[in-house]
């Protein structure tokens, strides 16, 4: 029997779910391997009571999200967190700084009350155990297909651990440090093929911290090249604001 899969969206821009529809050449093949039981974006239907694999996109921003995740964990044998929002809190977690009520007032004023059950944004694994992670903003579809296949076979997610620079060097890109600009490649988990740097933009850290990222030595590296390091932490928090290393 094909594994029964559900797709669940929390607080996100749906970009990773859109990516999932963007494997036009492979979409129908991948769908052939699984029994897709619930995917609100693509099909009418109700969330079933029983399933094997849950794919979760988005950050946790409401009490309802917590309840949903607890149900998911109690039901699914494998939980796959997809995208920066789910894996690190991503961009939504920028709203975790300061008082949430001030942010609420700035956006909604003091009229009728909306956004019930709101809480400070969190990553999915701060609420439930996560078995597989597919980082990035948005996810890379090659990696998605790979991790999904590994999950279906019960293998580990096998994420690349080294920093981006390791791959970037092989692309023969001119290092942003040579141009005196901040790039977060030295701290960030690789696996993206250094796409941004190859297209002329410094890494913004969307894939989260590399396993052996060393913030101290990264700052020293920049400093030695005469690059202003005063806002490096602010930049590094863009997708990783909940990382302990950046909260000091």
């Amino acid at each position, binding site marked *: 029997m094909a594994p029964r899969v559900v797709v669940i*969206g*929390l*607080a*996100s*821009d*749906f*970009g*990773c*779910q*859109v*990516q999932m*529809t*963007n494997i*036009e*050449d492979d*979409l*129908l093949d991948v*769908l052939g391997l699984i029994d*897709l039981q619930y995917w*609100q*974006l*693509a*099909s*009418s*239907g109700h969330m079933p009571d029983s399933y094997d694999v849950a794919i979760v996109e988005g950050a946790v*921003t*409401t009490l309802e*999200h917590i309840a949903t995740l607890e149900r998911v964990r109690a039901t699914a044998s494998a939980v796959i967190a997809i995208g920066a929002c789910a894996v690190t809190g*991503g*961009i*939504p977690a*920028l*709203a975790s700084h300061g008082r949430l009520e*001030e*942010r*609420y007032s*700035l*956006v*909604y*004023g003091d*009229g*009728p*009350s*909306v*956004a019930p059950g*709101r809480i400070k*944004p969190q990553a999915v694994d701060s609420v439930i155990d996560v078995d597989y992670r597919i980082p990035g*903003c*948005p996810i890379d579809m090659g990696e998605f297909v790979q991790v999904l296949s590994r999950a279906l076979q019960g293998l580990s997610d096998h994420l690349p651990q080294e920093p981006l620079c390791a791959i970037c060097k092989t692309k023969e890109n001119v290092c942003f440090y040579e141009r005196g600009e901040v790039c977060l490649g030295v701290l960030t988990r690789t696996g993206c093929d250094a*796409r*941004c740097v190859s*297209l*002329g*933009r410094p890494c*913004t850290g969307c894939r989260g911290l590399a396993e052996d990222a060393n913030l101290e030595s990264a700052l020293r590296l920049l400093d030695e090249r005469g690059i202003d390091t005063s*806002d490096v932490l*602010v930049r590094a928090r*863009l997708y990783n604001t909940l990382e302990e290393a950046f909260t000091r």
Partner: protein
Amino acid sequence: MSTLTVEHVARIEGHGTITVDVDAGAVQSVHLDIVEPARYFESMVVGRRLEDAPLITSRICGICSPNHMLTSIKALESALGLEVSERTQVMRKLLVYGSFLQNHATHLYLFAAPDYVGLPSVFPLAETHPDVVDRALRIKKLGNDLTTLVGGRSVHPVTAVIGGFTSEPDPRRLEAFRDTLIATVRDAVATVDLFSAFEEFEVHTDGEMLALTAGDDYAIYDGEIAALRAGWRRPVSEYRDIITERVIGHSNAKHSTVGGEPLMVGALPRINLNAAALSPEAARALEKSPITVGSRNAFFNNLSQAIELIDALERCAGYIDRLLEMGGSTQVEKFDIAAGRGAGATEAPRGTLYHSYEVDATGIIRAGDVITPTAQNLANLEADMWKFAPTVVDRPRPEFLMAIERLVRAYDPCLSCSVH
């Protein structure tokens, strides 16, 4: 009295719930509750470097991320008093059209079409009508490929920055892509034929219709705001005086009005205001279609998107010709940080999108505002639902609810945009 609900309406981007109260066969009330969670984007950009704003705000929406990115960039360029080259402008238009092609194909085939043939999703059609599904995926992929060609990636493009592009496509790839665009026109024409043949509901929408308009161009990247009924044209910089947003108790998205009335934005208003600027093949398709210019049947927003597919393909081929003829390559314009305020607008697939920012003398953002097309449409959509529901209430319940869902989907709502 019985309360009927459709929780988390399927085949739309984001989470919304329809609630209808029916008493003795008469519709008492209809609501669309937007339960998509708030992310407070307007608060997130405050205190960040101005260069971060396009990157952050494009994460409002994964479907129209090129629009959010470019609208943010345009607003900041306006605040900085920065002008960009014609080459940059043409490349930006290609980026917007990449998202039109991708979005319209996804909306029409994956989201809307199953309704017309009574299926829960498009997937069963892969067995029964593989030609139709192949066509859908071809157009959708072409849109993604265009955004990737110009932007480096289809969701959250990489290369567009304040002042220009950090990288640009190889002319040979552009030239080859031009031929693919032209070859795909027949797929778009077939899409118009398909949606013209479907039996369509009718609801006469009362709201004002707004779209960007720019002389002879089918405006999607620049121009002024035009109103269909009132007949005025006003600059984008005045958008906050034109559109009033207010918080509604049952929705995490605000509702908008213009001159106290609900309003509609999107493909149907664009066609109503800019039909004369449509490309030749798109104009022919409009002529043949059941839409007459000035139509107020909101359901025709679907067919209008199909007509826009033809226009997008022909227009993009022309833009690529222009890029090849210009030669050279994009330079990112340098700029000096200065305090200022600026607003920008583009046409996203589902309607006009506005961003504005206030920047201080050190380049830090002090305030930001975003009004998305779906937020503009919600009041009008709900008014249409009130009007439409009584005309179908005598149908069996599943069919009745499906008819209302179809109206919601006709607006191609993006609820994560609408809340943001």
